């Protein structure tokens, strides 16, 4: 039998290698292509304070992106982290509420961003009358990243050894004291990795924002201003064939931001795991 298997074995080994090579090359090509074509178009005029149709500045979009990210995190991080704390530290096993929470969180993580966008448009923009605004966009995005923060918090808390809790209880500390002074400090890096991952998703999001935060090019005045984030800015530019170079430039900035942020998250998570061991 061996002589028959051998060429097949070689073939099988070859196709897995080819597939892995394809995956890697596609990634490398995509990144390099955008960088090489985009970097030369990163001109100072693209970062002028005020947007005009002439300079097509991405600066207001960058500021909006930062505000949008901060606001979404202010809403989503406490909710997600507290939810994670409840699931790990308080909930009893087999509790029905916990099951419902888990199922709904999983459902949330599967919903496409355009459906979030539709919901945000109908609920925050129209029903709550917030209009197209950073606030409506941030609330929409915070629901979107909530399951991610919940899950990473849960995993980080679970990785804290039970002996820490027992030690704290044994010394007479209450549950709350144990959570905030003993468990959370050692879970912070894990939670942080999840938060940073969420930042990456918020910055890269487009479909959920077009009809909630809008596409206004101006610098936002307050959270009720409509504004476009960098991703939405890039989307608007690609719609106008005149602005291909500016699209490349926006693509470069987005790519560097998101890939940098995700790598940072992976780095923190890795360091955390090493130290945990």
């Amino acid at each position, binding site marked *: 039998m061996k002589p028959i298997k051998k060429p097949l074995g070689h073939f099988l080994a070859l196709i897995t*290698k080819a597939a892995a090579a394809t995956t890697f090359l596609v990634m490398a090509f995509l990144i390099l292509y955008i960088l090489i074509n985009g970097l030369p178009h990163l001109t100072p005029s693209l970062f002028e304070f005020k947007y005009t149709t002439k300079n097509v500045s991405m600066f207001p979009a960058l500021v909006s992106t930062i505000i949008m990210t901060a606001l979404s995190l202010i809403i989503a991080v406490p909710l997600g982290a507290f939810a994670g704390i409840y699931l790990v530290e308080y909930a009893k096993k087999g509790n029905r509420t916990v099951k419902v929470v888990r199922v709904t969180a999983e459902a949330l993580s599967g919903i496409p961003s355009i459906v979030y966008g539709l919901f945000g448009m109908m609920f925050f923009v129209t029903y709550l009358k917030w209009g197209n605004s950073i606030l409506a966009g941030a609330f929409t995005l915070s629901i979107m990243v909530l399951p991610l923060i919940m899950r990473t918090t849960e995993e980080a808390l679970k990785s804290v050894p039970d002996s820490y809790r027992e030690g704290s209880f044994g010394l007479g500390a209450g549950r709350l004291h144990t959570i905030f002074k003993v468990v959370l400090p050692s879970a912070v890096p894990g939670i942080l990795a999840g938060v940073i991952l969420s930042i990456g998703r918020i910055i890269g999001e487009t479909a959920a924002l077009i009809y909630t935060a809008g596409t206004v090019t101006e610098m936002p005045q307050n959270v009720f201003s409509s504004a476009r984030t960098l991703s939405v800015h890039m989307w608007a530019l690609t719609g106008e064939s005149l602005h291909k170079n500016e699209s490349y430039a926006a693509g470069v900035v987005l790519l560097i931001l998101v890939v940098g942020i995700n790598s940072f998250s992976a780095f923190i998570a890795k360091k955390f795991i090493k130290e945990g061991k």
Partner: protein
Amino acid sequence: MASDKGDPGQKSQKFWENFMKTLFFISALTSVIAVFLICIFLFAGGIPAMFKIGLFEFIFGRKWAPNDVPPLFGILPMIMGSIYITGGAIAVGVPTGILTAAYMARLCPQNLYRVLKPAVGVLAGIPSIVYGFFGMVVIVPLVSQVFSANGNTILSASILLGIMILPTVIGISETAIRAVPESYYEGSLALGASNEWSIFFVILPAAKSGILAAVILGVGRAIGETMAVIMVAGGQPRLPNSILDGVRTLTANIVTEMPYAADLHREALIATGVVLFVFILIINLLVALLKRGGN
């Protein structure tokens, strides 16, 4: 601590314990409330339109012409568009993804793994708008040159989405392959099978429920993708005749027409979202069933 009895300090501690516990519990309910609200608003916004148009005419209507008199709201072209493009993405992304996962989990040398794993992470992190732009400036012209036709086609969208679902398929397949007990592999080797043979005919079949979950999640990602698809698929709301025709997906229908839609037209777009949502719910359900079966 005995001296603390009746101490106001302990009373306030008890208050905080209960207060925070309630706060944590309420936070945990956020996701339940969010899903509830999303369902209510989506269904209330879309289902009336389905009945005004006629459920059958809406889902199986072959013509989408909101500006005709009387307007026609048939979303069959968009449903088929989503299905074709998702099918194409699966054809491109799943074989590549599973083979890459097999290579990463079982065959690849340690130092190569340290390059491949982050590469997959990078692919997962790239925003869909950047993928879409890449598709627009690279894949569309390429398809157009090779087939000397308009490049905004099902084929271009399938290739692009095939790349976009790679990280999902690879990540989950890899976990599933790694979860297969080592004894399976050793047993196969002991019976005289080669390394590759054992991987393909023992380990992969043993990991099939996890790999299937990876494929289904890939389908979910592909069917829900919006921005990238709009930029490469052409967007014509008609039933395609070949993979070199342009199509419009359910997601694209919503984004493209929302800016100028009003009244029934707008409701019909929300109803398109409802159909998409139902697709996604079915996919979630399948994944949940698979997980339960796996355990």
